[in-house]
Structure formats: structure tokens, C-alpha cells
């Protein structure tokens, strides 16, 4: 095994494979920065180019590209409040809030360092877990996966606002997200649901325009209202400092970063959940690290832990998602499904062969994830502070550029004007939520989880009827969901009692 590990490294370091990896990193870097252009889409576009390559070169190219997309997606999220990738949306909540306080450099430093640690943890998990993961994946059937989705939603809904009122709004927002996810042709009976008689809605609502609208539109309106730069009146001298502080923050909260990386890896392993879910789960966990209600209020207002959690989970999920893809041929996400296509194009069959005959190729994938992330983060750090200065550019110079990217980013989902309308509609909803003090995070998680949860619920009911509710892992997860819901309320009550006692 050790021999295969080193052989994998040597394979990636061959000049041709290394050059293809650099090319992939370059492409992934820009794809990550552009809103709307997803990593999965780019993988699909690049798939035909691997025909002439050797397996190691092909995976160095594809994985190199895919590994850095989430990392650079964080950059636009932090600087402009526009998610460069669907998987980078959670970074906006605290990352962009930090940018508005003049701490863009620190937020970017934290996002990139946690991304690197996340990627390393994911790659390490991939290297270690392949022989032992089979029983874990097989324990989780549809009922358990449905409950994982419910726990995730309970997690974020109960933690993203304060008190009973906040929790009510959190669950309402999450439920609304799940409801919007039902739009389109239903997967079981083929009924057109809530399509308003239009063909466009048959395919359902696209995630990218919805995410861009929910997050970017309220930020853009606020920027117009303020009439200043993103960083406001913060002295320009402060903007180009802080990247190093972000690195230090990562190590100050090292165990949080590791835990969020593990959450990302776990979500990555679970088929169908994907990176959009991992980031919110990690964000929910990061908010739990607040020791009291006062500290929790910092989240959403620029707490660096809100950047570290999603940043780490975003990248660690790649290693996790590769585990079932390589070991069983079960892709953990849409991007992995496309990568699976790459396996077949290369004449490789995922499964036991990848762990025996082609073990060196499997380890070359691990090394590609590690090297691609290290190279990207080092390259980003070279001009991170210069990037942070963009937050000092006059707002009315940035707004037209951001709006052009927002409109085109939405349009690219289906190349249909309907996507732009969806973006504007969800922008309106997002704006109302911000004005009304409703949390947007559960709404987005509901949108992401809707289709997955529906599918698992249907299979659970059709296969087990009501008996799925009594399965041991389901009961454990149900208990966990109840704890997650009750914990903040108990914490708030205790804090209230303490305050009364002091008075």
C-alpha cells in the first residue's frame, strides 16, 4: 500500500500529468470565480478532451480543475456577496459581512486556509477509508438518508436565528425551500406540479439562479442604498492587511476546522447529498461552537468561524465524494457522476479493481486533490491583499459589473430568460427575508435538499410503509434532530435564568 502511495505521487509528478493538472487548475480557478458557471458543467464540457490522455493525466486534469472550483468560489462570495459556486453560498453570510467591515483580507485568508485543510482532510479520508467505508455506506438506506436531510434542516433552522420566534421563522424558511423544490415534473408519477402551464417549469427551478437571486440581490440593493464602496468608510490602509490574520484564525479554531472538514467528508460520502448541503451543515456546526447567545449573535455579522466551517467542508467533501465513486461506482454528487464517465472513457471500472490492480491510479487522485489545493492556495495568497482592495472600489463602478455577472450567471443555467426572471423573483424573496429578519440559510438548504429528501421519503414509504420510522439509525437521527432543536432553547432559557439571578 505504501508503495502504491508513492507510486501515485510519482505518477502525478510526471511532467505531462503535472502540466495537465496545472491547466485544469487554471480553468477551475476562473470557473470558480464566475457566478453561474458550475464545476460540474465545466467537468462535462472538458470530458471529451480526455480521450487522448492516459488515465493519470486525465484525472490530474479533471480533478485538478474540480478541486479548486470551490476554493475560488469563496473569493466572489467574500468580496461581492455573489456566490461564485452553489457550494460557496454559505461563506457569504459571515465572509461578506467581514468584507463590509474592512476585513476582506482576513476573511479570504481564513477561507483559503480552511479550504486547504479541508481538502487535505478529505484526501486523507479518501486514502484511509476506501477499505473500511463499505459497511458505513451500506448501513444508510433511503430512510436513514431522508433523516440525515431532516437533521441537516433542523440543524440550520434552529441555529440560524434566536429564540422561539427565530426558530419558527427558520423552520418556515426551510419548509418554503422544500416546497419550491417540488416545482416541476414529479419523479415518480410524472405529474407536472406547480408549473403554471409553462414548459419552462417542467424541469423544476434551477438552483443557481435562485441562489444568486437570494444572496446577490439584497447585497446589491444595500450597496446602492449606502452609495459607498463595499468596505464603506474603512481606511484603505487596513484593507490590504489581514490575510495572515485569517491564516492564524484557522489555527486558533483548528479543531472546528477539522470537525467541519469531517462533516464535509461524511456528507460527501453519502450519495446524493452533495457539497451544497455540506457547507450549510458545517455552518450550522460552526454556530454551535458559540459558547453563549451573545456570542452566537456575532454569526452573520462577520464571525470568522462562519467562514472557516463552510470553507473547510466545501473542499473536504471532494475526497469524501470520491470514496463511493471509486470503491463502488456510486457517485456522491453530480460532478462525481460526470467523473465516473471519465473512468469509463479511460477503460477503468470502479470497484475492487481500483483498490487492487489500479491502486496507484487511485492514490494519484488523492495526490491530485492535495497538490491542486496547495498550488491554488499559494497562488491566491500571492495577490490576496490586492483582491481585498476591490472592496474599496466605488460602489457605482462595481454595481454594473456585478449585475452583468449576476444576470449572465443566472441565464447560463438553461440559457433561458426564465432563469433571469427566477433570479429576480428569488432576489425579491431574499430581500423581504432580510428586511423581515428571516434567516436565508434554512431556505437555501430546503431548496437544495428538496428533491433528494422527496426521493428518499418516497422510497422509504413505498418500500417499508410506516416501518421505516422504527429503524435503529432512523431513531438515533430523529433523537439527534430533537436535541438540535431543543438545545438552543434550553441554552437561551439557562442564559435568561442566569441573568435574572444576577439581577
Amino acid at each position: 500500500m505504501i508503495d502504491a502511495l508513492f507510486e501515485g505521487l510519482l505518477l502525478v509528478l510526471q511532467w505531462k500529468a503535472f502540466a495537465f493538472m496545472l491547466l485544469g487548475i487554471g480553468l477551475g480557478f476562473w470557473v470558480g470565480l464566475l457566478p453561474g458557471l458550475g464545476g460540474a458543467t465545466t467537468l462535462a464540457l472538458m470530458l471529451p478532451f480526455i480521450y487522448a490522455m492516459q488515465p493519470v493525466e486525465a484525472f490530474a486534469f479533471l480533478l485538478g480543475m474540480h478541486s479548486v472550483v470551490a476554493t475560488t468560489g469563496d473569493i466572489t462570495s467574500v468580496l461581492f456577496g455573489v456566490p461564485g459556486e452553489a457550494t460557496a453560498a454559505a461563506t457569504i453570510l459571515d465572509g461578506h459581512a467581514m468584507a463590509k467591515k474592512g476585513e476582506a483580507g482576513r476573511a479570504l485568508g481564513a477561507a483559503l486556509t480552511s479550504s486547504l485543510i479541508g481538502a487535505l482532510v478529505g484526501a486523507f479520508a479518501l486514502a484511509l477509508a476506501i477499505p473500511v467505508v463499505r459497511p458505513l455506506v451500506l448501513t444508510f438506506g433511503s430512510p436513514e438518508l431522508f433523516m440525515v436531510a431532516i437533521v441537516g434542516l433542523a440543524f440550520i433552522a434552529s441555529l440560524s436565528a434566536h429564540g422561539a420566534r427565530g426558530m419558527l421563522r427558520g423552520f418556515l424558511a426551510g419548509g418554503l425551500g422544500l416546497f419550491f423544490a417540488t416545482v416541476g415534473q414529479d419523479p415518480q408519477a410524472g405529474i407536472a406540479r406547480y408549473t403554471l402551464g409553462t414548459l419552462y417549469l417542467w424541469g423544476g427551478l434551477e438552483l443557481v439562479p435562485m441562489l444568486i437571486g437570494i444572496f446577490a440581490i439584497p447585497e446589491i440593493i444595500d450597496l446602492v442604498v449606502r452609495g459607498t464602496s463595499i468596505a464603506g468608510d474603512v481606511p484603505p490602509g487596513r484593507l490590504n492587511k489581514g490575510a495572515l490574520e485569517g491564516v492564524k484564525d484557522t489555527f486558533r479554531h483548528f479543531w472546528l476546522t477539522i470537525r467541519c472538514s469531517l462533516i464535509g467528508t461524511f456528507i460527501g460520502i453519502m450519495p446524493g447529498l452533495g457539497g451544497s448541503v455540506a457547507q450549510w451543515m458545517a455552518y450550522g456546526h460552526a454556530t454551535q461552537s458559540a459558547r453563549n447567545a451573545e456570542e452566537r449573535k456575532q454569526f452573520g455579522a462577520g464571525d470568522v468561524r462562519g467562514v472557516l466551517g463552510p470553507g473547510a467542508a466545501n473542499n473536504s467533501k471532494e475526497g469524501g465524494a470520491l470514496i463511493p465513486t471509486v470503491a463502488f461506482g456510486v457517485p456522491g454528487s453530480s460532478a462525481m457522476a460526470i467523473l465516473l464517465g471519465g473512468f469509463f472513457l479511460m477503460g477503468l471500472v470502479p470497484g475492487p479493481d481500483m483498490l487492487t490492480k489500479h491502486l496507484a491510479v487511485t492514490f494519484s487522485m488523492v495526490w491530485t486533490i492535495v497538490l491542486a489545493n496547495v498550488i491554488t492556495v499559494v497562488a491566491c495568497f500571492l495577490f490576496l491583499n490586492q483582491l481585498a482592495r476591490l472592496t474599496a472600489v466605488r460602489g457605482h463602478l462595481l454595481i454594473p459589473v456585478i449585475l452583468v455577472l449576476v444576470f449572465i450567471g443566472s441565464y447560463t443555467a438553461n440559457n433561458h430568460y426564465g432563469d433571469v426572471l427566477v433570479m429576480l423573483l428569488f432576489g425579491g424573496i431574499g430581500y423581504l427575508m432580510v428586511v423581515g429578519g428571516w434567516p436565508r440559510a434554512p431556505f437555501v438548504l430546503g431548496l437544495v435538499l428538496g428533491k433528494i429528501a422527496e426521493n428518499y421519503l418516497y422510497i422509504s414509504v413505498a418500500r417499508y410503509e410506516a416501518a421505516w420510522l422504527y429503524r435503529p439509525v432512523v431513531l438515533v437521527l430523529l433523537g439527534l434532530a430533537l436535541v438540535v432543536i431543543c438545545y438552543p432553547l434550553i441554552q437561551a432559557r439557562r442564559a435568561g435564568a442566569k441573568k435574572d439571578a444576577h439581577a
Partner: protein
Amino acid sequence: MHSKASLGLGVGIMILSAWGVISALAWPWKAALFPLVIGIPIFCLAATEVLWVLFGSTVRGETMDFQLSTHLPEQVTLRRTALAVGWMLGFFGAIVLVSFPVAVPLFVFLYLKLQGREGWGLSLIFTVAVWALFYGLFDRLLHLPFPDGWIQTWAGLT
């Protein structure tokens, strides 16, 4: 203002979920299961929220999310918000009427001149730069299909 937004959202969700549940009742159970499982609870939660807004405390809830700027007078905030919405709707209208390749430079230039009150030189150079980025990346490199606008189609310029 936050109470009005909450009330609007609550009532909107009640109407939406009621319509969703009523529509789902006519579908086979396979298609109706999830919309009913979701629709009924969110109707009840939305009704609770509406009652809370109408008869409960008016204190704004604290969320882990970004807050809009509050340092400006409400009239100024409302006027600028309306302006921002107007620009976005105007840009969308321009895209539909004259398509992306024409709407992008038109919007950037007008925004810089009218909203940003920038000089002619900077406005023109900036517009050309944004247009070059748009054209080079999305049109030439990525070959995104941009359909003709209504005006081009109507005038037979396709």
C-alpha cells in the same frame, strides 16, 4: 418595515401553501406525498407567524444573516431601494428588447453616467472594457447562445 415584510411573507406563504395543498389533493399519492407533507406544516407555521406579527411583540428577530444599512433616513433608503429595483428591472427589460450583447454596454454606460455621475471618458472606457470582457468570454470563448431581442426580431435585423 420589518413587521410589514414579515406579514407579507407570512400571508404569501399561507396563500402559496394553501394553493399547493389543494392542487396536490387532485394528484396520485406518489406525486402528492411530499407536497402534502411539506405544505400542511408550513401553512400552520405561516399562520402562527402572521398571528404573531398581528398580535404579538413587534421586536425584530435576530438572525445569523446580514443586516441592511440603517444609518440613512427611511425616505432616502426607500427612494434608493426603488432606484436599485428600477435599474435591475430596466436591465432585464433591455435584455428582452435588444438582447444581451446590446443591453450590457447600454446598461453599463447609462448606469455610470446617470447613477454614478461619472465623466464621459471614464464611462466610455469602462463600458468598452466590460463589453470586451462579456464578448470575449461569454460570446467568443464559451459560445453562449444569446437570442435576438424583440426589437431586432420586429425590425427584421436577425
